[in-house]
């Protein structure tokens, strides 16, 4: 099915067209600085391209419902490696990539619609859509590629777009967005280097090339073998790549800074799609990970720690987008926790619901920021529910889903993860505990955010700032996402609940062909589930803590800053540490960035200039000096020459005699 190539190609073409529109706009602006040129068209081009890609993705999606579980395009023989091997790239839609492609194009389309209004009036309007479309194209290549090499193309491509879009307003705030973009790219590259090594190790160990199907098959065939250490190392290295892209510890610090980009970018790239690539990669290679239990354990620990670390950091952030950023890191941690326990379906479930409610929250935040004239500090908001009713209502839906209030999408997906961790037992109870604490923190910070933004007194200059509701192009996507956030849980109802209504776990059944091999290795059959009574108990417990902590978070902050101040006063040290996200970023600056800079200067000045070049110049100078000294011997005096000639002849004669003897 070569029309699969169209899915990434359409947004790519859209990107090129938008780029040309941007160039034409710049040209028009040269003549008349006020001119808009054809840039307004860019929004339509970009939306059209995503919409068309979405249609083709849907077509492919419907083609894989029945017995056919995957369709694949002709391969592009990209890099001939040696006489026999070639790195191929083909587009593959199967149960996993089909679902992801729908999320990317669907949520992507909504965000494009929203952005067409949000970015109105920006001088880089067309450029913005060129980047955004390019991002979607790269994301689709990442997801749809049938091989690790193809995925790596998209992997680096989305990193590039992320860099460009974070730094989109590169001249604002003294160039801070450009710094943030650079940081994101470099952090991602650290992960990418690890990814590369993992890819090479798989290539040399398995010798089956880079296609996922071949790798998974070869890995599964070695399951239970004696020495799989190298494969485990490869899995770990690839997980290193995932850490970079999905902002897990220790590579997490770039994501909060990425909020320097325009808000639709944060919604699309840094919440709904790109940052979930790492989860996608692990699910894609589930047989490989299934046979490396130690690596899975590492993944679970990293995920749980990241979830807790980020959720606690979100507690005290004042920046509305900052809360959402840390929340995203934290939710991604949940997904890795799920992967670490082999709960592939739960991880993907949370990827999807999170895409709905986090995109919704970011876009809602954008609507607030827009209405507040670019204010992001929640301490300068308050009482906005009266001014922005539609944004408020949809934001509440997103907040409820994020905090895991019962029956909403986030409730079911998060609960499934926690249930799966609980099922593992043993040391996993610890991680489960951490997950539960994180869930409590999540409910707290979410409703603190809602209270500070929409309730309480208005803490802004009423004469200067007139908050207003956003236009329909922005609020309609919010409403659609709100509906999805509320009902999205239906695709994966818990076992016990599903039984009541005779509804299967749709997502589980859908994904079964993809996860079968991994489950087979882990469980020698389909994945088990909890006893009904335990499951009910856990559901009830989760509902209870969500309500309790949401209540607490909301009521301590609904009267304005009093709650904040009392907490500050009670625990100043904790508040300080948390507001700096445990000081990790500063530690990196001090322990890594600064010494590296120093080292670079040391190498350049001391070793290179003084050392190596110094030695070179010294050789040059001594040659000159020697020349100056030797000059005396050729001073033009015949007697002198005669003397030296005689002396030389004598020495030569002596030597020859000695050698002859």
């Amino acid at each position, binding site marked *: 099915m070569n029309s699969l190539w169209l899915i990434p190609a359409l947004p790519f073409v859209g990107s090129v067209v938008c780029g040309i529109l941007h*160039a034409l706009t*710049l040209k028009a602006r040269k003549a008349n600085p006020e001119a808009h040129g054809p840039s307004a068209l860019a929004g339509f081009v970009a939306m059209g391209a995503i919409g068309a890609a979405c249609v083709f993705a849907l077509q492919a999606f419907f083609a894989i419902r029945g017995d056919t579980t995957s369709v694949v395009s002709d391969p592009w*023989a*990209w*890099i*001939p*490696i*040696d*006489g026999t091997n070639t790195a191929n790239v083909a587009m593959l839609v199967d149960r996993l990539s089909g679902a992801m492609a729908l999320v990317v194009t669907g949520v992507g389309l909504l965000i494009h619609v929203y952005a067409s209004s949000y970015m109105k009036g920006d001088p880089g309007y067309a450029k913005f859509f060129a980047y955004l479309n390019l991002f979607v194209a790269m994301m689709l290549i990442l997801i749809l590629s049938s091989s690790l090499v193809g995925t*790596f*193309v998209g992997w*680096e*491509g989305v990193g*590039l777009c992320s*860099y460009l879009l974070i*730094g989109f307003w*590169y*001249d604002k705030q*003294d*160039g801070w967005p*450009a*710094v943030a973009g*650079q940081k994101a*790219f*470099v952090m991602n*590259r*650290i992960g*990418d*280097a690890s990814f*590369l*090594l993992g890819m*090479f*190790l798989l*290539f*040399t160990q398995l010798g089956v090339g880079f296609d996922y199907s071949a790798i998974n098959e070869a890995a599964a065939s070695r399951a239970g073998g004696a020495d799989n250490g190298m494969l485990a190392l490869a899995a770990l290295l690839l997980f290193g790549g995932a850490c970079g892209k999905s902002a897990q510890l220790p590579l997490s610090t770039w994501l909060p800074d990425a909020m320097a980009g325009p808000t639709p970018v944060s919604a699309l790239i840094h919440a709904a799609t790109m940052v979930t690539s790492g989860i996608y990669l692990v699910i894609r290679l589930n047989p490989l990970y299934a046979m490396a239990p130690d690596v899975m354990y590492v993944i679970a620990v990293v995920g749980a720690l990241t979830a807790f670390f980020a959720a606690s950091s979100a507690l005290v952030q004042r920046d509305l987008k900052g809360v959402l950023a840390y929340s995203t890191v934290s939710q991604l941690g949940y997904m890795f926790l799920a992967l670490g326990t082999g709960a592939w379906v739960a991880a993907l479930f949370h990827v999807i619901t999170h895409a709905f409610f986090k995109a919704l929250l970011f876009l809602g935040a954008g609507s607030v920021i827009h209405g507040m004239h670019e204010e992001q500090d929640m301490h300068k908001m308050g009482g906005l529910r009266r001014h922005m009713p539609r944004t408020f209502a949809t934001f509440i839906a997103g907040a409820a889903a994020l905090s895991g209030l019962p029956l909403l999408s986030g409730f079911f997906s998060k609960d499934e993860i926690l249930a799966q961790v609980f099922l593992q037992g043993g040391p996993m109870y610890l991680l489960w505990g951490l997950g539960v604490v994180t869930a409590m923190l999540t409910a707290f910070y979410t409703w603190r955010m809602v209270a500070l933004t929409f309730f309480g007194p208005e803490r802004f200059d009423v004469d200067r700032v007139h908050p207003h509701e956003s236009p329909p192009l922005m609020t309609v996507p919010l409403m659609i996402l709100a509906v999805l956030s509320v009902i999205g849980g239906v695709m994966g109802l818990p076992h016990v609940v599903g039984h009541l209504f005779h509804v299967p776990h749709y997502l589980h059944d859908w994904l079964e062909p993809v996860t079968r091999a991994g489950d087979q290795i882990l469980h020698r059959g389909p994945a088990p589930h909890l006893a009904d009574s335990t499951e009910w108990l856990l559901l009830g417990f989760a509902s209870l803590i969500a309500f309790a902590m949401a209540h607490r978070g909301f009521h301590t902050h609904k009267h304005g800053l009093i709650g904040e101040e009392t907490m500050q006063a009670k625990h100043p040290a904790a508040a300080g540490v948390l507001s700096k996200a445990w000081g990790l970023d500063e530690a990196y600056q001090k322990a890594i960035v600064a010494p*590296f*800079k120093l*080292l*670079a*200067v040391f*190498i*350049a*000045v001391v070793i*290179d200039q003084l050392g*190596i*070049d110094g030695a*070179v110049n010294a050789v*040059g100078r001594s040659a000159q000096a020697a020349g100056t000294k030797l000059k005396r011997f050729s001073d033009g005096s015949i007697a002198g020459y005669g003397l030296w000639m005689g002396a030389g002849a004598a020495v030569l004669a002596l030597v020859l005699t000695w050698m002859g003897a």
Partner: protein
Amino acid sequence: MLLTVLTFLPLLGAMLVAGLPSRNEKVLRGITVLVTAIVAVLGVVLYNGFDGADPAAQYVAQADWFQLGKIEVQYLLGVDGLSILLVTLTAALMPFVAAASGGHIKQRTREFLVWLLVMETGMMGVFLSLDVMLFYFFWEVSLVPLYFILGIWGAEKRIYATLKFFLYTLSGSLLMLVAVIAAVYGAESTSIVEMTAWASEQPLSVTGWLFAGFAIAFAIKVPVFPFHTWLADAHTQAPTAGSVILAGVLLKMGTYGLLRFGIAMFPAAAIEAAPVFMLLGAFGIVYGAFLAMAQTDVKRLIACSSVSHLGFVVMGMFALTAAGVRGSVLQMVNHGLSTGLLFLLFGALYERRHSRSIDQYGGLAACVPMFAFFWVFSMLASVGLPGLNGFVGEWLILLGTFQASPWIAAIAVTGVIFGAVYLLMVTRKLLFGPVVHEENRRLEDLKPIELAVVIPLCAACLWIGVAPGGPLGKMDGSVNELIQTLDGLREGDQSAQLNVEHEERAR
């Protein structure tokens, strides 16, 4: 015949430019561009006609030259899979260099153009010669024009840089001459093919020394750490055209020499020396990157990035695997394109602002958007973004190195990170942030002539990045033959070792 034309047409052009009565610089430059463009077209014809599956030299041109005792020195040109890409690159790059030189060569234009054309003859000769004396002749010929280009049209510290360049290259050349003489008298032939055959029958005690002589001579030219300090000075002081040729082609004479005379002629010695050179390459990658991070002079920074990128090339070829060698040869071309582009673009900026200091810029993206676009594009090609040329080369090199030594590949892979650090840093400081210097607001964006130079080169980067199968296919025959030879030697070694062990056990 085609190769003879490719080599000597520029020299004819040089004579024409030198002898023409017209003093109009535009006419002179027009002729130069025309001549180099014809050579470029011929280069493309050659590329298309070249059969990549055939390992033998093609388009051979042969004539007797002179007698050296018993030895018949020949005029012998030919092209094979190791040289085809570099020949095409040289031919294709020169018209752009000639066209771009109009912006910054304002005095003694005629002389400059003559040297440019003479240099092209020299470089072509180096890549096409299949006779070692002829090779040496062209090698020296190519040295002289750059000496003058650097010395006459260079920046403020040009004399120091020129002297340094000359002394370094000369010492390399002399070392090579010694090795050439020794090898020629041993082989009793100057034909590279016959010398290789002779070398294959010599013990390691002989070929080891010869390999060392050639390898060090070429390592200076590349330059491999610790011989690299001439490069930063030469690049920084050279006029844009000089920097572009230096990065684009001249340095490749070193890496090409390492491959042709180091590895292909003395494969057994190369196997022994491979770990050292791979480590030197990997070390160069990291070292060059750190050097680049500390620079405040943009041209110097790009020069240091060359040290890093050439580390990849050296490491890849000494991996002695198919992927490594192929990636290495391709990366020679890639580095020529992407670094050439960076020098060309910064040269355009330098013509307008006359400063190489990074803090004289900032926020240029808002002032000169087209410049910003092409700079970012070239920077990404250099960083090795998939879809552009640099990635294919780096990826193959890293894969090939990983096959040979995972640990060295693990060191080298950090270059992927550090490369992003310094290139993104210089990009940010040039293009992003607020505009600090008011005069930058009035900068003129790229002119049509500059676009005409930059766009085709960017297109080439994209083409190699998306469809590297074409250029990589051109070296199939030659690289496969080389790898077979190497494999044969390695297997021979192993079986010899096994025999020894067997004998010991028998005792």
